[in-house]
C-alpha cells in the first residue's frame, strides 16, 4: 500500500538526489508488494487475484506484421518490468506514481488473427452459445493486456504508460475495469449477486500445471476466454434467499453445497435427495449444470465485478484460463447455455479469446522467441 510516508520518502530521496547531482534512480525499499514480471510464465494468471483489474482490448494498426508486433511487445515488456518492480517507465513523466507497485502484474496476450504469426499455435474463436447477446463493442481484438494491482493509482499509472507507448502501433478498442474482493482466509471473493465466486478453482501447483499451462509450441503459455456477463440485479433482488440458493445450488452464507458440507470447498453431492425424493441440488441449478462428469476444476476462473458508471449496469468480467479452451471451457459453457436456472439473471454481452504468451527471462521481452525475432 502506498502510504503517505513512502511517497514523501521517495520525494525527499528524489530531492536529495537532485541536490547532490547524483544519478541515483528513485528506488524506495522493495516491499512484499512486488510480483516479478520476468519468468518462465507470465505473472497475473496463477497470481492470487488482486483487488483491481483493467483489461485493455487493442487492435494492431492495419498492415502491421510480426516486426511491428515485436516492437510493441519490446516496449511494453520494458514498461511492465519497470513498473511492476516499482521503477518508473522510461521517460515517465510521473515517476512518483510508480513508487509502490502494489502487486501490479501486467499480462499480455494475442487474439486469433495474430496467433497465425506464431507457428504451431492455433486459437479458434468460441462457438456461438444460444444464450449469448454479444455486443460488438466488447468483441474480439488483436491484443489483450491484463493489468491487476491492489492500488488504483499504480494500476492507472501503468495503464497510462502502456497506452502512451502504444502510439502508432495499436488502437485501443475497449477498456474493462473491475474489482475483486480479497479475502485473508483463502475463501473466494463475492460477486455482486452475493455468491462466493471461484470455489471450483485449481488450488495447487499440480492442478495449475495440469489445467492452465500449455505445452508444445505454446509451452508455459496459456489461453484466455474473456466473457463480459451482465447481471440483472433488479429482478435477482426480488428473489428470497431460498430461491437464490436453489438457483445456484449453494448456501449464500458460506458457499457450502445444498447437499451439505462445511464450506464452499465441500464436494457437492448431486444424488442427495430431500424427503420427497428430489435432488437437494436441483439438476437445473448452476452448480449441477456447470459440473462436468469428472469432479473438480476444469480451468482457472479469475473473475472481477464491474459496474458501468454511465448506465449503472453491473456484472462480472469472467476470465477463464485453460491450456485448451475448446476442450476445457467450451463444454462447460455449452452445458450452461443449454440449461442453467441462473441464465434468467445473467447475460453474456462480450466475448473474446486470447493466447497468453509464455513468460520472458530477464533481459528478454515477451513474445520475441515465439515470433522468431532476434534479441
Amino acid at each position, binding site marked *: 500500500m502506498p502510504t503517505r510516508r513512502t511517497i514523501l520518502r521517495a520525494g525527499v530521496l528524489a530531492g536529495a538526489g537532485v541536490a547532490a547531482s547524483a544519478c541515483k534512480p528513485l528506488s524506495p525499499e522493495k516491499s512484499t508488494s512486488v510480483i516479478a514480471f520476468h519468468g518462465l510464465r507470465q505473472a497475473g494468471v496463477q497470481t492470487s487475484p488482486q483487488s483491481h483489474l483493467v483489461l485493455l482490448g487493442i487492435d494492431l494498426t492495419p498492415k502491421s506484421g510480426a516486426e511491428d508486433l515485436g516492437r510493441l511487445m519490446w516496449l511494453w515488456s520494458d514498461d511492465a518490468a519497470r513498473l511492476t518492480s516499482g521503477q518508473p517507465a522510461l521517460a515517465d513523466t510521473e515517476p512518483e506514481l510508480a513508487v509502490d507497485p502494489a502487486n501490479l502484474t501486467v499480462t499480455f496476450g494475442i487474439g486469433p488473427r495474430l496467433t497465425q504469426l506464431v507457428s504451431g499455435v492455433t486459437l479458434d474463436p468460441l462457438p456461438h452459445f444460444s444464450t449469448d447477446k454479444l455486443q460488438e463493442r466488447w468483441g474480439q481484438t488483436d491484443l489483450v493486456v491484463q493489468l491487476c494491482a491492489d492500488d488504483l493509482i499504480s494500476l492507472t499509472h501503468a495503464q497510462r504508460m502502456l497506452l502512451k507507448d502504444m502510439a502508432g502501433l495499436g488502437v485501443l478498442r475497449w477498456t474493462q475495469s473491475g474489482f475483486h474482493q480479497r479475502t485473508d482466509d483463502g475463501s473466494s471473493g463475492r460477486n455482486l449477486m452475493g455468491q462466493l465466486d471461484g470455489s471450483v478453482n485449481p488450488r495447487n501447483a499440480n492442478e495449475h500445471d495440469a489445467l492452465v499451462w500449455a505445452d508444445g509450441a505454446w509451452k508455459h503459455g496459456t489461453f484466455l476466454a474473456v466473457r463480459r456477463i451482465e447481471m440483472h440485479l433488479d429482478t435477482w433482488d426480488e428473489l428470497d434467499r431460498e*430461491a437464490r440458493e436453489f438457483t445456484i445450488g449453494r448456501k449464500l452464507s458460506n458457499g457450502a453445497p445444498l447437499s451439505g458440507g462445511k464450506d464452499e470447498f465441500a464436494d457437492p453431492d448431486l444424488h442427495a435427495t430431500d424427503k*420427497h425424493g*428430489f435432488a437437494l441440488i*436441483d439438476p437445473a441449478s448452476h452448480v449441477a449444470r456447470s459440473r462436468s462428469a469428472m469432479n473438480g476444476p476444469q480451468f482457472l476462473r479469475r473473475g472481477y465485478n464491474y459496474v458501468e458508471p454511465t448506465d449503472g449496469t453491473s456484472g462480472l468480467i469472467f476470465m477463464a484460463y485453460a491450456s485448451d479452451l475448446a476442450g476445457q471451457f467450451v463444454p462447460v459453457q455449452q452445458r450452461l447455455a443449454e440449461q442453467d436456472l441462473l441464465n434468467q439473471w445473467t447475460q453474456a454481452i462480450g466475448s473474446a479469446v486470447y493466447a497468453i504468451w509464455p513468460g520472458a527471462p530477464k533481459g528478454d521481452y515477451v513474445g520475441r522467441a515465439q515470433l522468431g525475432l532476434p534479441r
Partner: protein
Amino acid sequence: MKALSASAPRAIARLAACLLMIAVGVVASLPLPAQAHVLLLRSDPADGSVLKEAPTRAVFEFNQPLAPTAYVILTGPDGPLTTGPVKVQAKTLTLTLPKVTDGRYRLAYRVISASGHPLTNSISYVVGKIAPRTMKQPPRERSPDWIAATGVGAVVLLGIGAGWFVVRRKRQRQTGSPQ
C-alpha cells in the same frame, strides 16, 4: 361502579383492535415477498381424495406462471412408479399417470415459478377401497402463511389478556379492593 363496568368491555375491545392492527402491520412488513411465492391452488386428483378408479392423469394449478423446469415423483404401495412426461403450460402442470392397482399414492412435485421461486410438496390420494393408513404420510410443511396466522393469533390473545389484566387492576384500585 356501574359506569366503570359498562366501559370495561369497550376498553378491552379497543385495546384488542389496536393490538390487532399493530400485529397486522408487523406481519405485512415482514421482509418475505409473500406475493412472489408460488402456491398450489388446486389439483386433480385433489389432496386426500378417495377415488373409485385410478386417475389417468394429474393436473396441478398454481397461482403463478411456471418455468419449464418441473419434476414429479409418484410413489405407490410398492415404491416409486414411472409417470408420463411433465407438461408445463402457463400456471398448469399436467402429466399422464400409469395404470395402478388399488392403494394409497403420493404424488410429489417440484415447480419453479417464472420469477424463479421453487416449490416442493406433495399430494396423496387413495385408489379403490383400502384399509386406512397403509402408507406413511409425509409431515406437512409449515408455510409462511401458517406461521403468520399463528403469529397474529398469539399477539391478539396476548393483547386481550393484557387488556383484561390492566382493566382488572384499574377496577381493583378504584374500588379499593385489596390484592
